[in-house]
């Protein structure tokens, strides 16, 4: 209110164009003094993972065993055991058989905890996404997700163990 009276008094004692300029300055100043709004910036929760086109380096036997052990047991394999497994792999000509026998041996271990089958069937998409991330460190494409979902739902014998077996033995899993 006081500001308004002072403004009227000034207008009376100054030429008309001065008043107009002062009014303009006042309006700008009053806008500039408004409290700054609180703005926060966030990143959208979009996970970026490598695609399979980038995987062109073949894992060594030691790397494959170490990674599959970690993927399944969520813990690393001791170095001496890793060395010994690699020796056994060398002693078998068909490495695909060695991988398959080792994996099925892992699945026989009592300390391995797998997703229950009913949990997989209750939310197959979540299971598929988690499996792709676990083994391939990427999300499935929509086509892959659809195929694997339909495959799991239409094959009553499929268990998480067999799905993990398929992923663990797959070609993509041999590369990084």
């Amino acid at each position: 209110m006081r500001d308004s009276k002072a403004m009227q008094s000034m207008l009376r004692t100054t030429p008309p164009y001065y008043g107009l300029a002062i009014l303009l300055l006042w309006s700008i100043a009053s806008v500039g003094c408004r409290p700054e709004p609180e703005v926060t910036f966030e990143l959208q929760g979009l996970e970026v993972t490598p695609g399979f086109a980038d995987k062109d380096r073949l894992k060594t036997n030691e790397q494959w065993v170490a990674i599959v052990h970690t993927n399944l047991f969520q813990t690393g394999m001791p170095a001496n055991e890793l060395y010994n497994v690699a020796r056994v792999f060398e002693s078998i000509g068909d490495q695909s058989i060695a991988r398959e026998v080792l994996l099925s041996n892992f699945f026989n271990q009592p300390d391995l905890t797998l997703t229950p089958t009913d949990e997989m069937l209750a939310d197959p998409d979540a299971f598929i996404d988690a499996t792709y991330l676990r083994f391939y460190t990427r999300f499935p494409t929509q086509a892959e997700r659809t195929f694997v979902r339909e495959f799991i739902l239409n094959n009553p014998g499929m268990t998480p163990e067999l799905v993990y077996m398929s992923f663990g033995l797959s070609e993509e899993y041999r590369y990084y």
Partner: protein
Amino acid sequence: MKKSLHASNRRAFIKKAGLAAAGISVAPYILPSGRLFAPTGMRSSEHVVMVAFAGGVRQQESVLKRYLDDSQGEPYPGNIMYNLFDGTPPENKIVFGTGTGGLNPIPSILSETIESQGTIFREVSALSAGHFGGLNSLVQGSTVTTQGLKQRPINPTIFEYLRRHGGYSATDVWFVGNGIGNSTPLLNHSAHPDYGAAYAGNFFAPTVTFGSTGNQFMADAKIYHPENELAPMYKLKTFLDLQFQSLTSAGGSLGNTEDEKQSIKAFMKAMYAKVSDGTLDLPPVTDNGDLYTMGFAVEVLKWFKPAFMMVNLSAVDSCHSNFSNYLAALHRADHAVGHLWNRIQTAIPEMANQTSLICTPECGRNLSPNNILDQNEWLAFDHSDSNSLRAWTALAGTGIPAGLSVGSEANPVGRVSDSMMTVADLLGVKSEVQAAGMTAPGTMSLLDQI
């Protein structure tokens, strides 16, 4: 009219698609062997077993039967390989047998020696004085100057020739190694672009695979139901592989069919059980690695009845530092061959009287000793001089003349690489191997040199 044209196109499309599908389903049966028809050569034996009597064997203590006479300056000749060669064993200074000091020679297994049953090439030339070079000459039929250790054979191996040109399946050709050292596991196929892993022989180093280490990681493997569990698992794997291969060129397996893989896995399971139960078909004496290796080789024969198996022995390499142990190993390698031949004839009816045997060292050993003395104060021998290029080859069984001796110290006949060509000859792919032109010059079947 338009409708009729569409119907015609549709019929043509279905017809072409059907033909393409038929082609795809037939192609895998053509491509693995690379040919449509049977090999051109005559197969004169159903099965061939080659023993790489390896580790470096001196002529003097083996085919020449001189025992200590030509090595330690002690006048005691004699034959310590009496399953292979005719001749009486030494009577004095016995150290190669069992028991304390090796005083008890191992009794012969065969009632008739390999020499009397077959043909001995008494003096053949080795292509290399080294183990890996020598073994490469046995599997490739050549040595390549650029061939390095820890490197796949540069030229195709006999396993690949047999599979590619003879149409043999992966479980029809086997390499049983004495271990995983000295690049032995690399010998089951070459890096040659026209052959390679797709034509490889199956391989086990059984003392490792079925030893305590292998037992720890492999023996507890599950056996899945082939239809209810394995079939969908492989189907999903195939989908995943197709997705990956659409953008990459991953591949490179041995080409075992799914049935063959199941058979190999079942064999492994059976071996772990036999090791656990103590029911392996082992030689009567089993006090070194070669004898265990041969026991597993017999198990491979019993299970798969392969067309070709090569088994590698190597305990005689102890000769670098211990001559007495070398003599014992030589005696045991002979014992191992006796067991092998005996079991083929008596315990594997599908192979009895239908199998050919080839035994040959990959290289010899020096004429002069080094300075290392053993417990009997006998000097040891390395392998680097011209005596290291002296070897022998023993053949017996189907297609091999009996009681024949070819060549002598003064008249060498044959090369170590000829063993590979002889296998190719017996199994009907000799002309294809010769046409490939990748064996050492002059390499030929021993049967053509009799």
